[in-house]
């Protein structure tokens, strides 16, 4: 992946993460892209150093009987390329409203 140039799909995913959609499935939902695109892109973005991933706090997950989820966050580099990409892909600005920049507590 060349530095400073993002495909629209990658940019949309970074944008979604920056907007607070931190989990794979949330990103799928908000971007409307299929999982078969989103997940490989997440892996690539992570490898390129634009994203980092962490595991959700175990205690949080344990409140429900389910395993801890993995969430993604932008690195500084990620924020820079996203800022450049937003200039190119005007369409991105119309997508989702900003959300809280924290691991989203589950509320099921």
């Amino acid at each position, binding site marked *: 992946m060349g530095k400073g140039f993002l495909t629209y799909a990658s940019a949309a995913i970074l944008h979604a993460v920056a907007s607070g959609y931190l*989990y794979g*499935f949330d990103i799928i939902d908000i971007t409307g892209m299929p*999982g*078969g695109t989103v*997940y490989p892109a997440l892996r690539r973005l992570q490898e390129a150093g634009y994203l980092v991933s962490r595991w959700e706090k175990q205690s949080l997950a344990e409140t429900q009987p389910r*395993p*801890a989820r*993995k969430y993604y966050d932008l690195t500084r580099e990620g924020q820079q390329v996203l800022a450049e990409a937003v200039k190119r892909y005007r369409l991105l600005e119309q997508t989702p409203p900003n959300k809280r920049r924290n691991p989203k507590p589950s509320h099921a």
Partner: protein
Amino acid sequence: MSLLTRCKQFFARPHLSLIALLGVIVPRRLRADWRHEWEAELQYREALLARWDHLDWRNRLDLLWRSTSAFWDALSLQPRRLEDEMVQDIRFGWRMLRRSPVMSLVAVISLAAGIGANTAIFSVINALILRPLPYPAPEQLVKVFQGQLDPTKGTLPSLWSYPRFEVLRDQNQSFAAVAGFKQNPYNLTGTDAPERLQIEMVSASYFPVLGIQASVGRTFTADEDRPPATNLTALLSYGLWQRRFGGDPTVIGKTIEFDKHPFTVVGVLPPGFRGQDGTADGWVPMAAAETLDYKGKLTNPNNYWSQVIARLKPGVTLAQAQAEMPGISEQIEQKFPSPKQTLPGNARIPAVAPLQAAKVDPAIRKSFLILLASVALVLLIACANTASLLLARAVARQREIAVRAALGAARSRVIRQLLTESILLAGIGGGLGVLVARGGLALLKDFKPSDNAAFWTSYTRTFDFFNINLDWRVLSFNFGLALLTGLLFGLFPAIQSSFASVSQALKEGAVGSAAGFRGLQKLNARSFLVVVEITLSLVLLAGAGLMLKSLARLQAINLGFSPAGVVTMAAPSRAARTEFYEQLLARVRELPGVESAAVGSTAPLLGYASITAMDIEGRSDIGFSTIGVHSVSPDYFKTLGISLRIGRVFTERDRAGAQRVAVINQAAADKYFAGESPIGKRIKPFIDPEYDTAEKFVEIVGIVDDVKYARPEEATGPDVYLCSLQPTDQAQTLILRTNLDLSAIVPAVRSQVLALDHNVPLTAIRTMTERAAEVTSRTRFLAVLLTLFAALALLLAAIGIYGVMAYSVSARTRELGIRIALGANTGDVRRLVLGDAIALIATGLALGLVTAWPSVQVLQSQLYDISPTDPLTLGVMAILLAGLGLLACYLPARKAMRTDPLAALRNE
């Protein structure tokens, strides 16, 4: 856990099961993490939506749909495999192989030879047996034989007469279509360069049966094939069209001449299609038979000349078609009662066989199956050898493996590492094996068993050696074999090595005494492998020995004439009369370098021109008897060097109008005139068509030696020679005795032929020496290849024995040193070392003899004049193997004898 519970669990929450399943293809290092993430997401989503049991189908489907995305994710992670353990194993294995280059080289070369030879032979089997016929729905194609298996010859009578063929074609219920075909050579005339063409005479249904369409124009119509033929049509092969007509499409509608009869070209067949013999240049309808050949060919029910193929109706089985045949036979018999001396009752029922099976001579097929078995043995020996080498190396690596184990490597992990190495070896061997196979195939093509088509009439031969190549089936065979080989020779040493005792190996020095103890255990395993190698080698050697001996006996057969310096060629012309050949002979005799010249209806080893029924004047006791009939010019016997036994041969005075005379061979004299002199007796061979002469009987004037016309290994039957100057069959084969090369004599003869008649081509040019080699080619083919494989096996076995002995001597250096220091002399040491070797070799030979005895029985049908259990051959081969085995021990034994006790003990 029962399968049922597993299934239940799988379907209880299919989205999670799918993730577990897909996890398998995720690189191992990332797997746990990957599964965790996906499961967490799915379960979270599930929890969000309420529990699975309460989900409506839309949500269930959504979850399932999401889980399938994991497949693409898993795929995208595949490049990460490079960091996987397997790749590490391969890298490490590669380093280990490079560290012991000699051992790796020996292993790779022997594996490449073994795998390559297997691939080459398999590719022939593939083309011969496995690959389907190149026609649409080939499984529906059958060959219909005119009668049942002839128990005396083991062959099916394949030829039909035209009227009998018509009954089959018109009365059957099983076949969608039935077609007849027969290939004959005719001259392309009416041009400046006459050419002998192979023309397949076929019924109009022939092309629909095969499912072949013309690539230009059309094939024959039913009208064109309805006798009597008025407007004769012809089809060209693609090759002939390109060669003689420059690929010009306007050739359609043009007239060409075969033997001076005009034919209208109506189509060109697709490239590659050359008829059932694989050699046809053109096609004419069967209705043309009486025009091109002779009257009565289409009406005489007892003139058998055409073969028959058919296409089964959809849904009709072979057995159903066969079940209909007795009825057909009945109808044929009612319409055309068989003459009394021919096939009896049941033997007349036509036999239906798949065309696929009929396309290859069973003898050829069998030779290749034997060869495949032999190369499999060679590969087994190569495997045993490689296993033995790996075991030897495992001893050297004992410490490394012990250290690995000490650091916590599981046994399975160690075995996997060692197996990866052996599969890597086999993989490299397999890759090189493809190259070996390509080279081997080129050799096989040069060296293919060739034969005169006259011997093969009962088998259609669509099979063409040049179609043999390395297709996907062969390549997958090759690599499958390599994988299997790697497992085969790798598993045993790997499991052995994984038992390494940590404390033992680490405590001892690299070549300590206890390591020697472990070494002995490995030595036993290696000894076992050597015994296996010797056993298998002896089987191969015995087979090769038998074939070589068989070949020698075949070549030593007295052919009844002297082939050296004899050249035969055909100057065929149906229109040409006896005078033409007399003039030609007169001209050819004058050519410089020609010692003698003659014509004959055929020549020795070229097959019979005709075998017919015969009567003897005044004898009713002989019943139905047949005799080979040869029409020859007076100098025939002199030119071929056939000795006269009694009476005289023909002279220039034996002409039309004079008393008709005949010369018979010794076999005829023995068979029909036992205890009396045949000279002066009169016989009447039925020659078809009968010639325009009042005197049908010929008087025997001489007896000559038996001459081989067909296969040399077959007993010579009775033959009669008639003088070509008298009314008889046509004699169009030119036979010269000359000291000149083909390149010098052929143009000279050709210009004489063209000077006499510019429509007569000169074809089928060959030397008798060439032909004599050709008729034994099948035996030679098998003999040479088996010898090659046996030699390879012998070499591998020798390497194996050498390796084991060399290892054993070096492991026992200290022991030998002590013995020498205590006063053992070189003789004692030699006895000690060679004693082991002799025990190994003797065990191998004993097992080998026991195995070879039944194994070589498969060669039975391929052998001539030798029993498969010929004790002399087996004995000689056992001695050869033993000798080479001992030779392989010589170097290690010499090293042992020269052991310097001081050096050996200082080593400690």
